[in-house]
């Protein structure tokens, strides 16, 4: 019997990993939270570590207006000014 593959078989080229930074030293790193309570202590710790351990110059913290939707357009526009960003969820 011949049967067919039910899964999405197409490529997703838009979701290739972003280019890695050679160094975090002196960089501006954005951190986008989904807005849930658990993200705050987690990203507080991440911010401290980025600055203290990796020499990041500036950490920009932003929160999405809807925790189940993509980040707002103004955040994505601002993100163009950052060297890299971390998006995270938490509950």
């Amino acid at each position, binding site marked *: *019997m*011949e*049967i*067919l*593959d*039910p*899964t*999405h*078989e*197409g490529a*997703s080229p*838009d*979701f290739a990993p972003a280019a890695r930074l050679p160094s975090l030293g002196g960089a501006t790193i954005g951190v986008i939270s989904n807005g849930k309570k658990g993200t705050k202590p987690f990203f507080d710790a991440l911010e401290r570590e980025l600055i203290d351990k990796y020499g990041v110059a500036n950490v920009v913290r932003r929160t999405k207006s*809807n925790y*189940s*939707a*993509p980040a707002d357009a103004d955040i994505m526009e601002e993100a163009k000014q950052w060297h890299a960003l971390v998006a995270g969820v938490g*509950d």
Partner: protein
Amino acid sequence: MNLNSKRYQVDDLQSTQEFYHSRKWTDGLPVVPPTPDLVEACLEWVLMPADHLVGIEPVRQRAITAEKLAVNAVMAGCLPIHFPVVVAAFTAMLQEPFLLHGATASTGGCAILIIINGPVRGELGMDGTFNALASSDRATTVIGRAIRLALCNLLDARPGDVDRSTLGHPGKISYCIAEDEENSPWLPLAEERDVPKHASAVTVMTAGAPRQLMNEWTTKPEEILDTFVAEMKASMRHYSIWPGNYAIVIPPQLRAHFEDAGWSKADIRRYVFENARILRREWAECGKAAVVGKHGDTEYAALPHSDHLLVIAAGGPAGGFGAVIPPWLGHKSLAVTMAIGACLDCKP
């Protein structure tokens, strides 16, 4: 017809089951083997080529083709005559206001509720009477299941993968209901939502589990609705306070009282809109004092507007039972209604 899916050779029906189960391509129940002939029959029924673009998932930009949807529909048990409903429902789900990616990924664990209106219900043998919210008939069961399998296989909404639901609910296996238009004095839901009279249509909603209620001790519309309102308030207190689309299912025994009193669906929606409200401080009564904050006297309505209430006539002939189906994420995800066979890109 030129199908593009990868093909596999299996020995028999049993090995087909194990082949698909072992790859996590099922919901755990047996599937119909999606042979090229069966998939082609679905596509021919809707007059769509295999690569017809049903739509693109807005967040991950995944193209959903008619062929892939048909493969999953066959697996779910759909016949070709069921496939137009599957196509319409998935097309509606891909509209941006529906927020499909969030709904399938959320810890909130909602399911996709599909409500069917119009002549297609009779053509497919759908039954909106006995056991309306469960396996009332073959068509609603397999159509609801096709949607879930397609989400798993085309958008990776498998538990623990994209689907991060903490609990989920049984509607995630299949959650499809046909409105009982023949035994109802009211406008069908789709017609209330601007689909032309006598056209067949689907309405999709990101929905929590149904919350069943009972009131057999009054004939007054206001008192019957007060029971529905109480259930909506309970959902606002216990689950989420944010306003959005709620669906309420009203069975014949209760519908008769509304008919006697001359109440339309619009009257019901207005009454519920005005009364389904709580104060933020009520959270303190159910263990959520920590999030009351300084706005305890702020009033929250269950519905942003009366139009956000989906009133569905369904249920067996006896019993004063009804159901409230709450929204997943307030008004951040909106119910979408679409005529079956409608062309989104066609000019008038």
